[in-house]
C-alpha cells in the first residue's frame, strides 16, 4: 500500500520543529549539534520524498549535498568543542560568548 506523499512532509516538519526547538532551548553543545543534525535530516527527508513524488533526481542530489555539508560541519564543530573542553571551559553554549562585541 503506497504511503501518501504528505505524510513524509508531515514527518519532516515534525522532525524539523523538534530540532529547532531543541536548538533554541538546550545548552549542551553536543545536544545542540544533534538538533542541527535533526533539522538537516528533516530537510533531507523532504527532499527525497518530493524527489520521488516528482520522479526527478534533483532532490536526491540536494540531499547528498546536505549530507556532505553536514559531515564537514560536524568535523569542524566537534573539533571546536574538543578544544573548548580541553581549555577547561564550561560546556554551555550560553557561556561561550567570546565572539561578542
Amino acid at each position, binding site marked *: 500500500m503506497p504511503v501518501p506523499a504528505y505524510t513524509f512532509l508531515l514527518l519532516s516538519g515534525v522532525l524539523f520543529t523538534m530540532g*529547532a526547538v531543541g536548538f*533554541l532551548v538546550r545548552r549542551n553543545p553536543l545536544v*545542540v549539534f544533534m538538533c542541527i543534525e535533526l533539522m538537516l535530516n528533516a530537510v533531507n527527508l523532504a527532499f527525497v520524498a518530493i524527489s520521488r513524488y516528482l520522479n526527478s533526481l534533483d532532490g536526491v542530489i540536494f540531499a547528498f549535498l546536505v549530507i556532505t555539508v553536514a559531515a564537514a560541519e560536524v568535523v569542524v564543530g566537534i573539533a571546536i568543542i574538543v578544544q573548548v573542553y580541553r581549555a577547561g571551559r564550561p560546556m554551555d*553554549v*550560553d557561556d*561561550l*560568548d*567570546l565572539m*561578542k*562585541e
Partner: protein
Amino acid sequence: METLAPFVLLAPLAGFLVNALFGRLLPRRAVAWIGAGSVGIGFIFSLNLLLQLLTGAQPLDQTYFTWWQSGDFSVPFNLYVDRLSTLMILVITGVGFLIHVYSIGYMREDPGYSRFFAYMNLFVFSMLLLVLSGNLLWLIIGWAAVGLSSYLLIGFWFERPTAVLAARKAFVMNTIGDVGMVFAAFLIFLNLRVLDFQGLFSRVHQLPKGGGVITAICLLLLVGAVAKSAQLPLHTWLPDAMEGPTPVSALIHAATMVTAGVYLVARMHMLYDWAPAAAATVAVIGGVTALFAATIGTSQVDIKRILAYSTMSQIGYMFLAVGIGAYAAGMFHFMTHAFFKALLFMAAGNVIHAFHDDQDIRHMGNLRAGLPITFWTFLIGTLSISGFPLFAGFFSKDEIIRAALSAPGTEFWLGVIALITAGLTAYYMFRLFFIAFGWEWLSHDDRHLHEALPVQTVPIVILAVGAVVGGYVPVASFLSPVFGHAVEVGTGAFIGLAALSVLVALIGFLAAYLLHARRPDLAVVWRTRLGPIHALVEHKYYVDELYDRVFVRPGLALARFLNDVVEPRVIDGAVNGVANFFLLEAREFRLIQTGRVSSYALWTLGGAIGVVVVVAAFLGYLPVRLGG
C-alpha cells in the same frame, strides 16, 4: 629606390643603447668612437640616400611594420624619404657628427662622459625619427623624444640648480607645443581619417580652403612648431637652455632641434597652402621673433646667450620664409644656419674653455694670439651670419628677404622687418666679435690662452668651409620636386635687393666697429642716452617677468590654496566623513552581536520564516499580493 633609411635610424639608436648600458664599463676612447661613429655611419647612409635621389630615384614611402591596429584603422611604422627629409638627415647626421667629434675633446674631463654620448645619440635618433617618419603619430613620438633628450642634455650638469631649472623650463614649454601637436593630430583624424602623410596630402583638399578646420589644424601644428623652435611667445626656454654643455647648444639649440618647427611647416606645406591665414600667422610670428630676438641680442653680455638669441632670430627668418610660401628658401637658410651657428657655438665653446668657463664677453680678449684657429673660424661664422657677400648666410638670407620684399601687402612689411633685422644681426655679431675677441687687447693681457685640441678645431674648420661655400649648394632646385619652382626674380631686382641687404649689413658692421672697437666711450654714452629702452632690451622685454606674474605665481598661489584649503578640508573631509559616519552607525549595530548562540539561532529562524513568507506572497499562496 632602395632605401637604407632604417639604418640611418638604427645606427644612433645602437650607439645610444651601447653607451647607455655599457658606457661605464667601456674605456673613454671606445665610448667616443661609438658615440661619434654611430652618427658618422648614419651620415654615410644619408649620403647614399642623397646619391640615389640625385641619380633619379623617386621618393619612397615604405612601411616596415604595423604598430597597432583597431578595426579598419591601423598605425604603420613607415619612413618617408624624399628630398626634404634627406636634406634634413644630411644636416642632422653631418653637422651632428662634427659636433660629436668636437665633444670628444670638449667633454674629455667630464665624469659623465658616457652618459653625455648616450644622450647625444638618443637625441640624434629622436631627431632622425621625427624627420623620417611617414606619419603624424611617429612624428609626434620623435617630437616628444627630441624634447626629452633636450631636457636630459640641458640638465646634464644636474648638480647645478640653474641647469635643472632651465631643463624643466624647456620641458614645460616644449610640452605646451606637444599638446598642440596632439590636438592637431586629433583634428586631422576626426576630419580626414588618416594619419600618414601620403593620405593626408591627397585628402587635404576635401576640406574647404581657408576653412575653420584646416586653419585650426595648422594653428595647432604651429603651436608645436613655435614651442620647439623657440619663437614668440614660447621662446623663453632657449636662452636658459644655454646651461647645457656647449656641444649641446651647438647640436640641439642651434643646428637641429630648434629647426624642427621649420621642418614641420615645410613638411605640411600642402596644409599651409590650404590655410592662408595660418601661413600668414607663421610669417608674422617669424618676422616679429627675428626682430625681437635680434634687439635683445644687441644688449646681452653672455656669449652663449647672444648666440641663443641670434638662433631665435635666424629661425624667425626661416619661419618668415616658410610662412610666405618660400619653403625652399627657408630650408636653404636652415642648412647654412646649421653650418655657421654650429661653428659659432663650438668656437664659443673653445673660448669659454680657454677662459675657464667664464662666459662674459667683457672678460675676454686677446684671442687672435691665443686661439688663432678659433679666432679665424669665428670671424668666418660672423661674416656668414651677418650676410656678407659670397658667404653662405648672404645667399640664404637674401633669398628670404627677396621673397618677402617681392610679395605684395603685409609680406612686404615683413621683408622690411627682415632687412632691419639683417642690420641688427651684423651689429650684434660684430659687437660680440669686437668685445670678446679683442680687436685690441682691452684690459688684462698677460693671460696665456691655449688653443683647443685638434679634435675640437678640425670640426670647426670643416664647418667654416661649409659656412663659406654652403651658399653655392643649389638647395632650391634640389627641393623643387617637393615644393615646386620658386618665383623667378629679374636680374635687376636681384642685384638691387642684394646691394640693399649688403648695405644694411655694412651699416650694422660699421655701427659695431664704431661703438665697440673704435670708440668704446661712445657706447657708454649711447647706453645712458637710451636709458629706459636699453634697460627694456637688456631685460629681454621683461617677458620672463611677465610670465612669472601671469602664469607662475598665480599657478603657485592656486597650488598653495589647493594644498592648504581644498586638500585638508574638502578631500580629506569627504574621506574621513564617510569613515566617521560608518563608525557611528556601526556602533549601533554592534549591539546585535550578543555572543549567545540561541539568540543568533532565533534571528536565523526569524529570517528564514520571513523569506518563506515573502516568497509565498510572491508566488500567490498568501492573501496578500506582492508584485506580479
